[in-house]
C-alpha cells in the first residue's frame, strides 16, 4: 500500500518537474498581508516555476457570502479559496464546495500516508488543512510601564489597564474570551455559549468595554493599530503580530493564554473554472516541504506532523520560530480549540445576535 502510494507520488513529481507550456491562470482568494506574502513565497512562486501556471490572487475577509453569490449565479470566477475550517464545513454542507479525495494527497517523505500525517480534524470532506493559526490578544509593551496584562481577563479590566482595545468586528473569539474572563473552564465554553444565559453573560461582559473598543475587519489592521498607538491592546492573528513586531521592530507582546486555535483550509468552489489545476495545486501546496516552508515565513504551525518536525528558523530574521507558533507545547496548555462544527452550524445566528448587540446604544 505504502509502496504503491510512493510510486504514485514519484509519478506525480515527474509530471510536475517538467513544466508544460501552460496558459491557464489559477485565481486564488486569500487573506492578503503578511499571510498571503508567506503563501506567495512558499506555494505560489514555486508552483508557477514548476508548472508554468500563473497565479492571480484576490483578497477577502472570510465568510461564505461572496462564494454563495458566485455559485448561485453560475458565475464562479475563483479556482481556490483559503477558508477557515468552519466556513469550509458550512460551505461544503451548503453544496458550495467540491468534495476532495484525500487519498490522493502525497505521503510524508518517510512514507506516512497523508491521513495519518495531518493533525486530527484537518482533513474535511471539501477541505485540506494548511496552517494552524491563532487569534490572540496582544499588547503594546510600551503602553504599560508598570504591571503588564497577562491574561484574557485583563482585556476587560479597563481600570488597571486603561486605553482603547482593538477587536475584530465578529463574534468569534470575543464571546469565548468573555466567558473565559468569568472563570469558565475552557472545556465548558461552547456548552455555555449554546445557552441563552451564556450568550447574555458574554454580551454583558462586552458591554463593560464597549466604549473602549476600536473594531477591525482586515487581518492586517490590528498590528497597525498597535503600531500607530491607536490601541493599547488588540485581538489579532498571531502570525501577523509576529511579522509586524519583527519587521517594524515594535514591542508587541502576545498573551498566549486563551489563544483561539483555528486552521485554514483550501477549498474548490463548485463550478470553478480550472478544477483539475486547482487540485494539482492543493497536492503541491500541502506536501511536507511546502507546509514547512510557509512556517519559515510566518509564525503559523503546519498541519502536517512531518512538516512541524522540519520547522526551525524564521528566514527573514533568523530567529527560532518555534516558540512563536500557536502549536508550541507550553502555549497549547491554555489554548481554546475552536469548535468548528459549532461555528459551521450556528455562525449565521450568532452573527445576527452580534450585529444586534453592536447596534444597541
Amino acid at each position, binding site marked *: 500500500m505504502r509502496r504503491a502510494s510512493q510510486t504514485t507520488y514519484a509519478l506525480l513529481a515527474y509530471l510536475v518537474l517538467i513544466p508544460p507550456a501552460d496558459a491557464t491562470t489559477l485565481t486564488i482568494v486569500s487573506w492578503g498581508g503578511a499571510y498571503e506574502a508567506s503563501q506567495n513565497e512558499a506555494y505560489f512562486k514555486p508552483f508557477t516555476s514548476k508548472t508554468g501556471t500563473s497565479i492571480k490572487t484576490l483578497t477577502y475577509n472570510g465568510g461564505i457570502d461572496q462564494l454563495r453569490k458566485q455559485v448561485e449565479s453560475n458565475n464562479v470566477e475563483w479556482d481556490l479559496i483559503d477558508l477557515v475550517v468552519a466556513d469550509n464545513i458550512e460551505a461544503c454542507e451548503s453544496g458550495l464546495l467540491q468534495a476532495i479525495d484525500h487519498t490522493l494527497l502525497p505521503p510524508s517523505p518517510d512514507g506516512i500516508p497523508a491521513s495519518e500525517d495531518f493533525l486530527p480534524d484537518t482533513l474535511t470532506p471539501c477541505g485540506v488543512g494548511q496552517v494552524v493559526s491563532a487569534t490572540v490578544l496582544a499588547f503594546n509593551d510600551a503602553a504599560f510601564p508598570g504591571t503588564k496584562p497577562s491574561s484574557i481577563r485583563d482585556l476587560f479590566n479597563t481600570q488597571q489597564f486603561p486605553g482603547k482595545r482593538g477587536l475584530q468586528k465578529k463574534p468569534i473569539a470575543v464571546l469565548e474570551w468573555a466567558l473565559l474572563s*468569568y*472563570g*469558565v*473552564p475552557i*472545556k*465548558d465554553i*461552547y*456548552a*455555555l455559549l*449554546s*445557552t441563552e*444565559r*451564556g450568550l447574555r*453573560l458574554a454580551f*454583558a461582559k462586552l458591554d463593560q468595554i464597549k466604549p473602549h473598543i476600536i473594531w477591525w475587519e482586515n487581518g492586517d489592521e490590528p498590528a497597525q493599530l498597535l503600531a500607530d498607538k491607536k490601541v493599547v491592546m488588540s485581538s489579532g492573528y498571531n502570525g501577523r503580530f509576529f511579522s509586524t513586531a519583527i519587521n517594524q521592530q515594535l514591542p508587541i507582546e502576545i498573551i498566549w493564554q486563551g489563544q483561539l486555535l483555528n486552521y485554514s483550509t483550501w477549498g474548490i468552489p463548485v463550478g470553478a473554472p480550472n478544477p483539475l489545476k486547482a487540485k494539482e495545486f492543493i497536492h503541491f501546496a500541502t506536501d511536507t516541504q511546502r507546509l514547512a516552508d510557509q512556517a519559515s515565513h510566518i509564525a503559523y504551525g503546519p498541519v502536517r506532523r512531518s512538516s512541524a518536525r522540519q520547522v526551525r528558523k524564521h528566514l527573514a530574521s533568523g530567529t527560532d520560530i518555534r516558540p512563536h507558533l500557536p502549536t508550541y507545547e507550553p502555549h497549547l496548555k491554555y489554548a481554546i480549540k475552536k*469548535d468548528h*462544527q*459549532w461555528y459551521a*452550524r*450556528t455562525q449565521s*445566528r450568532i452573527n445576527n445576535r452580534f450585529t444586534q448587540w453592536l447596534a444597541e446604544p
Partner: protein
Amino acid sequence: MNLFTRLTFLAVFAAVTGALASLAAIGFISLVGYLNNLLLISSRSRLMFGDGILLSVVTVAVPALGGLFVGLLWTQVKEQRPLGPADAILSAQTMSGKLPVKSTLLASIGSVVSLGCGASVGQYGPLVLMGSAIGSLLGSHKTGAKNMGVVGIGCGAAAAIATAFNAPIAGLVFAHEVILRHYSIRAFAPVTVAATVGYVMANFVFHQQPLFHINPVALQHPLEYLGFVVIGVTGALIAIAFMNAVLFSAKTATKLPIPAYCRPMLAGAILGLVALWQPEILGIGSELLRFSTIEGAFVSYELTILITLKILLTALCIGFGFAGGVFSPALLIGAMFGAFFGGVLDLFLDASRSAISLYAVCGMVAVTSPVIGAPLTTILIVFELTRNYDLALACMVSVVFANLVGYRLFGRSLFDVQLAARGTDLSMGRDKAILDHISLTQYVSQTYSRLNAKDTVQAVMNELVASDRTEAYIVGENGEYIGTITSIDIIKLTHLGSLQNLPASDVARHEALVMDTNTSIWQAMHQLEGFSGESIPVIDRANYKLAGVVYEAALVKAYLDAEQSVREEEHATS
C-alpha cells in the same frame, strides 16, 4: 493462606476491582454524553440543531420514549424497580456482600437511557452501584478469604467516586462513611488501593477531566462564616423538602390508575413540556451548575423558579421510575440555593462579600450532605477539587450544621429512609442490621417432646420422664400448634387428683411467646425479654404448623456468633 499471599491477593483484588469500576464509570459517562448530543439534550447539540417545531417535538418525545423504555425494562427486573446505592449499602451492612447481577446490569442500562434521554436524575448513584456490583461479583468467588464481597463493594464504590470527581481521598472516605460505615484495616487497605487505581485510570490513562471544576476563591470577611451557618441550616431544610418530595412522588406514583411501566413515560412527557419553557432543566444540568458559580448569571427570581422546578422534576423522575441518583440533582439544587443566598446577602450588605462561587459551593455541600449522609465525603470532594483551605473551611461549617439539622428532622440520609421503608432500620448500627437479616430457621431444633392432642396427660408425663425434659408441645391432627404442657402443670394436676386420663389438648396452654420461621435473631432477642422457660415454640406462619422449638441458649449463641463476626471483621483477626 499465609500473610504474604493474603496481602498480595488483597492488593490484586482491590486493584482489579478499582480498574474495572473506573472503566465502567468512564464508559458510562461517555455513553451518556454521546446520547445527550445525539438526542438533542445537550445545549450545544440543541443550538446546533436550530430552533423550530421539530426541536420542540424532540424535546417532549425523547424523555417520554426513554421513560417508556425504562418502564418496560423494570418489568424484567425481579425487584420491579431500579437498584441504587441503597442496595449496595444494605448488602454491605448485612454482610451478605452480594448484589443481584442481572438486576444491577438492567439498572445500569436503565440509568444510561434515563440520563441519555434527559431525565432529571443524577449519575453518581448508578456509578456507585456499578462499581459495587463489580466488586461484589469479584469477591463472591470462593477464595478462602472471608467477606470479600463486602470489601469488594467498598472498593468498587470508592473507585467510582474517585474516578468521577478526580478525588481519591473522597472516594476512600465515601466507601467508609456511606457504604461500609465502620473502619477496619481489612477493608481500609484494599479500598485505598481501589480508590487510587480509579484516580490513576481517570487522570493518567484516560485524561478524564473532573465532572465539576471549582476555581479557588479567597474569603473576604470573617463574619461571612455566620452566613455559612445559615446556609447550612437552610440548606438542610431544602434537602429535607427535596427528600420528602422524592418519597411522596414514589408513593403517589403507585396510586395512579396507569400501569407501572407507563409511569416513567408520563414523567418524561411532563419533563419535556416543562423543558419547552425552561430547557436548562433537562438532564444533569452541568451548565446550570457552572452558571451558579458565575456572578450575575441569574436574574433574582430565576433562581427561585429553577430551584423549585429542579426539586419537583427530580422527585417526579425518580419517584415515577427513571433510574438515576439524587447526588447530582442535590449538588445542583444546593449550588443554585447558594448563589441565591449570595444574591440575597447583597441586598443587606454594603461591604463586599466573597465571590459567588464560594456561596454556591457552600450551598452545594449543605444540601448534598444530608441527602447522601456523607459530611466528610462532601468536604473532601471540595477540598480535593480545589485544594483551597478557605473554601474547604467554609464548606465544613455549612456541612456540619446541615447534617445536624438533617439528622434531627429527617434521618441519616435518603438511602437510610428508603431502606427503612423496605424494612431495614440502620439507625441502630450494623449489628442490628446483621442480626435482623439472620433468620431463626437455622437455629430451630427438632429435639423436643411432641405429642398429639388426643394423647393423655399420663402419656405426656411418661414422655417427659423418659426424655428428661420439662416441656412438651401438643399438636393437632394436621400438626398445628395447640399448646404446651410443662412438668409444673403435671405436678399441679397430680396434686388435684386423678386427671391423668384427660386428653392433652384440654390441659395444654397456648404460650404467650411464640416465634415464627420469619422471625429474625434481632426480633427474637427482643421478644426474649422477661421469658423464663426452656424453649420457645416456632411455627410456620404459612400453615400454623409447629416447625420446631428454639432454645434460649441457641439464641444467645446466634447473637454472640453475629457479634463475633462483626468484631473479627473490624479488628482484622480473620
